[in-house]
């Protein structure tokens, strides 16, 4: 049997909006992936620790607060420090387009806007991991 793709869905920072995170988590599960949801208010350290401990293939960061400009670079740096920058990182939420290039330069593979069908995210992840 093919190994299941494992995804960590994480809520960095103090943002409390997790409708999107939970819907995506369930959608990915139904698409056959193994999904761990961190819950709210995760620091970059906590997210990277969970990702390493759980040995995930993908981290999905959900943020609507605008704090991504600080938090995402922190997460990417810590992943590198942990020698786990092989883990694919994707992001979604309210992330202004102006910031997308910068985030991609950090190594974030994709930034999904509100309204993205889950199937698009599933396809992207499968492509990325395989």
């Amino acid at each position, binding site marked *: 049997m093919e190994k299941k793709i494992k995804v960590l869905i994480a809520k960095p*920072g*103090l*943002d*409390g*909006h*997790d*409708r999107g995170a*939970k*819907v995506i988590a*369930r*959608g990915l599960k139904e698409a056959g992936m193994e999904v761990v*949801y961190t*819950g*709210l*208010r995760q*620091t970059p350290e906590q997210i990277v620790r969970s990702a390493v401990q759980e040995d995930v293939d993908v981290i999905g960061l959900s943020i609507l*607060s*605008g*704090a991504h*400009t*600080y*938090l995402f670079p*922190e997460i990417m740096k810590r992943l590198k420090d942990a020698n786990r920058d092989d883990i694919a990182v994707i992001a979604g939420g*309210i992330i*202004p*387009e*102006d910031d997308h290039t910068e985030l991609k330069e950090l190594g974030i593979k994709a930034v999904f*806007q*509100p*309204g993205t*069908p*889950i*199937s698009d995210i599933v396809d992207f992840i499968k492509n990325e991991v395989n």
Partner: protein
Amino acid sequence: MSDEKLKKTEKDWEENKYGKTVNRFGERKDEFKSDSGRTIKPLYTPLDLENIDYEESINYPGQYPFTRGVYPTMYRSKFWTMRQYAGFGNAKETNQRFRYLLDQGQTGLSVAFDLPTQIGYDSDHPLARGEVGKVGVAIDTLADMEVLFDQIPLDEVSTSMTINAPASILLAMYMVVAEKQGVNPDKLAGTIQNDILKEYIARGTYIFPPEPSLRIITDIFDYCSKEMPRWNTISISGYHIREAGSDAIQELAFTIADGIEYVQAAVDIGMDVDQFAPRLSFFFNAQMDLFEEIAKFRAARRLWAEVMEERFNAKKDKSKMLRFHTQTAGSALTAQQPMNNIMRVTLQALSAVLGGTQSLHTNSYDEALGLPTEDSVKIALRTQQVLAHETGAADTIDPMAGSYYVESLTDKFVKEAKEYIDKIDELGGMAKAIEAGFVQREIQESAYQTQKKVENKEKVVVGVNKFTEEESKKAENLLKVNPEVEKHQINGLKKIKEKRDDSKVNKALQKVKIAAQSEDKNLMYPIIEAVKEYATIGEISDVLRDEYGEYKAQYI
């Protein structure tokens, strides 16, 4: 026409006119469903109102059960308050935005605080990094509040503050700023959100566990009933429950159930229901299904009136009146073809007006992309002004009353929400139902089903899953919070800490601690004293954290 005759003519129409045509040509879809998934009949007639007694269930505006509105004249004497939620960066910038909005004809203020403020962390706390000034204004001490309301006469405007876990602290600061302007607390009008239960369910800015949180809330009820009689002590919010994915009936049921829990908590500590209930207020969402939304607002008034009379034996009419604020649905805004959001907001706002809202926030069309620009905020406000001044929607009271469809929906909403409330009662009330994860599960399920409906196109969202376009234009001029805000805010905080008298601060914090330990003391009084000494939000919250511990969410 007698009911018997009507039944016959309706059946006749159904079989011979409607049925025949459907048989020949079919309809657009096999099944018509409302946004909350209820089947919609092709036609509503007087027969749908057969079991609704006008005086008992609808009645006149300003009369129990207030289905047609809480006031006898509604918008004929005064429009709803146009209240745009705003706040970003530091107090000075937000003060400028407030003054701009007031200049544009806005009639009330609504403060958005940043997340560290909402969770009781100072701007220099490690967890505040990257968050300062982002989703709202950063407030650390009274000094920030003084700047925030500079040159805004607090005896003339009403101010709503979206603050929950640390609501007592922000209320105390507002009061002290007013005092410095020479305005007594009994002259102040406004609202604190102060609704912790929906934070556990949907919004996420909780600090303490439910029990001490309810105590903090009832202390505020008690304090305001004595000192701030014009202040709305809570805004019991369905808005965020809906944003988290609930349907309209769940929004209604869970909000009223939250209200029941708060009233019960206050009654349990010996307060007289008529002493505090007149100052409870509510906050609902306005989504896309126009008629369901109107019905929801009307049903909410009737349901609350019945709860207050039957369950809590309230005597005063004012205790039974559900007054509410409405905000259009953030989750209905699309990132694709964002200009379409202007129409969405207009229709949502119309539902709120036809539903008899007391105040309204209309979203800006670019909010799925980032923070709104001054121009998009202006269009949102103008939308309300057009509704108020050009459409006639505000010229007669409750114009949708008597619509066979809307009245039948209103009645159905009351009944279905009651069934939910019965279930919550069986679980031991809302706090217990939240602990058991019941409410969260119901909402998550609805959220997921909604997403599935969008993906399989059962639910059409223009520009997202139908009539799509290759996006050519990027959003322009989105508001950017100055990245220097955090640094400046932390410097400002440092300066305040140097200037204040630390021994006085410590003494004041000690008094907060003593009050927190003793159930028969009201926390508001020592918090006001601490605020006056420029104790920070973080310091006061930490005292309470030490006493009460922190809430840990369970994820299902």
